[in-house]
Each structure stands twice: as C-alpha cells, then as structure tokens.
C-alpha cells in the first residue's frame, strides 16, 4: 500500500489487470492474424469504438456516483430520430434539430435523476422504465421505419464526424471528440472539486451530505451528462452510417456497463477511473474484432465477452480482498 517503487505502484493500480488483458489480446491477435494490424482493420476499429466509448465515459462518472443508467441505448437511438425527423419534415434545420434532440436528451437525464434522487427509486427500475419509454417513443414517431439521412449536407455533420486520413488510416472526427471528452472527464474526476463530490456521493452518500456535499445535484447532473453524451453519440453514429434507425442502440446499455466494470469501476459506486474505462472499451471492441479475424465463429463472441466479465470481476474482488487483508 505504501510502497515507493514505481513498479509496485503500477501493479497495485486497479487498471493493471485490464491493461494486461488488453496487451495479451493485442499480442495474440497480432500473431494469429496478419490482418489485425492492417490499416484497414485499425480504421474499422476506430470508426465505431469512439461512439460506444463516449457513452462509457458518462456512465463511468455516473456509476462512481453510485447510480447507473439503462436508458443510454434508447437515447442513442432516439436522439438522431428526433434530429432527422425535424430535418426531413422541413420543420427545422439540421442544427436546430440537433439542439432539440440534445434538449430532449437532457430532459430524459433530468427525469431519471429526479426520480432516482428525490423519489428514492433505485436507478435500475427508473432507467429500465425510461429505456422502454424512450425506445417506444422513437418507434412511435417513425412508425418503426428508418429516417432518411443521405440528403443532408451541413457543416455540423463535418464537425461531428467528418472523415480524413492520416497516412493509410481513415479517421473520423468522432475519434478526436472521444479523446477530448476522455481528457475533460478524466480531469473532472481526478482534479476537480466536482470529481471529489462524485466519488464521495458514491462512496458514502450520507457522510458526504453531512459535510455539505450536494449529493442530489451531483447525481442529477451526471444523469443529464450521461443522457447528453449518449444522444451525441447516437447522432454521430447516424451521420457516419447514413441511417437513423429507431432500433439502433438496442442492448448497448449492457455492453457499456460491461466495459465500465471491466475497467475497474465498482457497480455500487465510489471507485473507478476514466483510463480504466477506456481500457475496458478497447478490450471488448478488440475482442469482437479480433476473434472474427482469427477464425472463431462470430456467434461465439458472447462466450468470450461473458468470460472476460466473470474473470475480471473475480480478479477485482480478489484484489479488493487482498487490499483489505492488511487493515
């Protein structure tokens, strides 16, 4: 615990286990498949990863504060539907549609946070209800049909997910946004006063409240942040793939939560890091990509993901117990 050696400190970091797994994964896939490190494959990896990654960043802070959000996948599908519906029906420009979509997402987040904190309903139940309400709304608005997106061209689309190349790599602007969000939220969590409040709210809400920490306000803000970032991610995705499908994002909530917990964030709050989450995102995305390349049937993917979750949870709990053994 009070070791001075750099190596020992590195070993005791909660991200160490996931980091080893990530490196191991990359080594195995690189040696087993020449295509893995090709520019084309890396470009593919970098296309979708930032979109799911953004959601995990918001979810990480929310989970550290002791709550979680199952409605992120629905908001991911709902926000682009709102934006494109306004645009396609000529009610509003794309920019205004975008703002309306973000506002509605903020409202969804606020409602989640309000129900959880003031009515003291567990976030599992609140956000499960919200998952159905938001998904249902997206399906109802569109009659279940995808929205057209290929008619549009706007500077906003370039800013959100414009395409450019670096050498042989094809990069989307969404990667830069993801990196920016990672840096900002990492800073908020570890360096800011708000970050201290987030960790305290999840660690011991009663003690934090007794010290004058605005636990309720902190949690509601994080629900709003998570919904906003999920909506932004959904808009990004819809522009990149040129489709706004009312069903897109289904099941994302569980994949996002899996990524966050694999990265070392506690499901019941108080503990976690942004860098751990980024490692968790990479582990699952590279796994999905790599096992197909090395010839494992794609349908077996979930077996691997499930095993990784179970293995990582066992590791975290073992580390936790060893950590407390000496006290």
């Amino acid at each position, binding site marked *: 615990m009070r070791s001075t050696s750099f190596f020992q400190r590195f070993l005791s970091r909660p991200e160490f286990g996931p980091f080893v797994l990530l490196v191991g994964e990359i080594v195995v896939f690189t040696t087993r498949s020449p295509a893995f490190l090709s520019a084309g494959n890396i470009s593919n990896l970098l296309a979708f990863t930032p979109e799911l990654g953004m959601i995990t960043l918001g979810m990480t802070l929310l989970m550290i504060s002791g709550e979680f959000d199952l409605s992120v996948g629905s908001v991911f599908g709902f926000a682009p539907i709102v934006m494109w519906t306004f645009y396609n029906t000529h009610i509003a420009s794309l920019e205004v549609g975008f703002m309306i979509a973000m506002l509605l997402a903020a409202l969804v987040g606020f409602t989640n946070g309000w129900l959880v904190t003031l009515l003291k309903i567990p976030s599992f139940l609140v956000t499960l209800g919200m998952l159905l309400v938001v998904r249902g709304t997206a399906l109802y608005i569109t009659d279940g049909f995808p929205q057209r997106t290929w008619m549009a061209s706007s500077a906003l689309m370039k800013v959100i997910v414009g395409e450019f190349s670096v050498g042989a790599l094809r990069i989307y602007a969404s990667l830069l946004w993801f990196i920016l969000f990672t840096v900002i939220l990492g800073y908020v969590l570890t360096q*800011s006063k*708000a970050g201290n409040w987030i*960790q305290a709210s999840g*660690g011991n809400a009663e003690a*934090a*409240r007794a010290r004058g*920490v605005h636990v309720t306000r902190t949690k509601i803000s994080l629900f709003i942040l998570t919904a906003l970032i999920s909506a932004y991610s959904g808009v990004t995705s819809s522009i990149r793939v040129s489709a706004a499908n009312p069903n897109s994002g289904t099941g994302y909530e569980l994949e996002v939560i899996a990524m966050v917990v694999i990265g070392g964030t506690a499901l019941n709050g108080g503990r976690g890091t942004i860098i751990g989450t980024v490692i968790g995102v990479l582990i699952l995305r590279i796994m999905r990509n790599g096992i197909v390349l090395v010839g494992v049937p794609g349908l077996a993917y979930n077996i691997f993901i499930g095993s990784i979750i179970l293995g990582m949870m066992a590791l975290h709990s073992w580390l936790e117990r060893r950590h407390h053994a*000496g*006290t």
Partner: protein
Amino acid sequence: MTNELVRMEHINKYFGRVQALNDVTLSVCHNEIVGLLGDNGAGKSTLIKVLSGALRADSGDIYMHGAKVDIRNTTDAIAQGIETIYQDSALVTQLSIARNLFLGREPVKGLRLLDRLDQDAMNEAARKLLKQVGIKKEIPPTTPISALSGGERQAVAIARAMHFESDLIILDEPTNNLGVEETQSVLHFVRNARDSGHSCIFIAHNIYHVFQVVDRIIVLRRGKKVADDIDPKQTTIEAVEHIITGMTLTPS
C-alpha cells in the same frame, strides 16, 4: 457559568407515545470536556442527534454563544460550529485522508471555471493536522481511509473538526470497537482538542474512558437529567454507576 458555549433548554422529544427526552437542560462551557452518561435508552443519542441536527426536538431551544439558533439539519449544525464524530466516523473510505478532510469545503485554485482542487494545499494541511492530533506514524495524506485503523480514522475525523474550527466536537462512542492502544490515542486526541481551544461532549459506555478525559459528567436516566456537575476528580466510578442505574447514592 460565565463562558457558556452552548446551552440546550427544556428539550422534549417524543417517539410516538414514548418520551425520549423530558425537559432536558444542559450547557457546555468553552474549553470544557463534558461526559454524557446514561444506560441504554436513557436518551443520550437522541439528545446528541438533536444538537447535531440529525433529529428535531418537539420543543426546546438551543443557544450558541448566548444567541438562539435554529438547527434543522446537519449542515446547519456544522455551520454553527458543531461537529459530530460517530463510531463509524462518517468518512468516505474510498477517498484519501486529504480529500476527506476537505470534503464539501475543498480549496480551489486557478480559474474558477476549471474548478481545480488545490491538492498541494490539501495535502500540506492534512500532513500538519495529522501531526497536530498526535499521529506519530508517517502516513501520507493521499492514503485512502480504507487503509487506516479504527483509531486513525477517529483521528482523521477529529482533525477535520479541529481544522474547521468547530467550537463544539461531539464524540458519540468514539472508543467503541477500538483496541486498548487505539483507545488511548483517541483519548489523547480529545485532550489535545481541548488544549487547542475546543469544547467536547464525550459519550461512551465505558465509564473508565470517560473518567480519564472529562472535566464534568452529566447523567441522563430515562430521558431526564439526573446529575449535572459531577466532578470526576471528586467522586468514584461506583458512585456514578449508582446514579446511572438509579440506585440510591450513599455518600462515601
């Protein structure tokens, strides 16, 4: 009572039909450690919860520095300079010592928008405070609370109360679940707190601990105050036990 710090007057509290506090009046002076004793269910905890804002009395007044105050919640109590330290210390075990010390009142540096914690200042102040409360071991202020022993945790809680200039520190069973050596260090912290100008209300089941540290003993029995100015130097533990249990006291 010349230099009175806090005064609770005619406090009554009912839980349904049960009267937990019956017209209790008490006061604590500056630089005084008062021991609050009583059997289980005597009303000690209820009285303390009223003073620390965790419960509201049904009737009665509280005065700080002679002025009437309204304590509706724990935040109000802290703002009035009343700090309560419970058995579990009310610390966030995942956070570091420094982050716990300043929780809710974190120093911020640089641009306001950046909301940046002044971690150097926090760690520096924490290091000094730990020394001040009498922790001899060199513990880095970045150590998480979960790595500390029970006595060290109490010390951190006491350090926090001292740093934010709480006038009155309430210690609710601070020595429960602690070993002999740790108990001694907690008692030592309490004496230090008085010497640096704080008043304390000390609640403990263990009368021996109370006798070692307090200036005056107040006894509650079934919600009523039955003794107010027992001087631990002028009496014996047996005599106080008699008062607590309600057996007639025969002067020795």
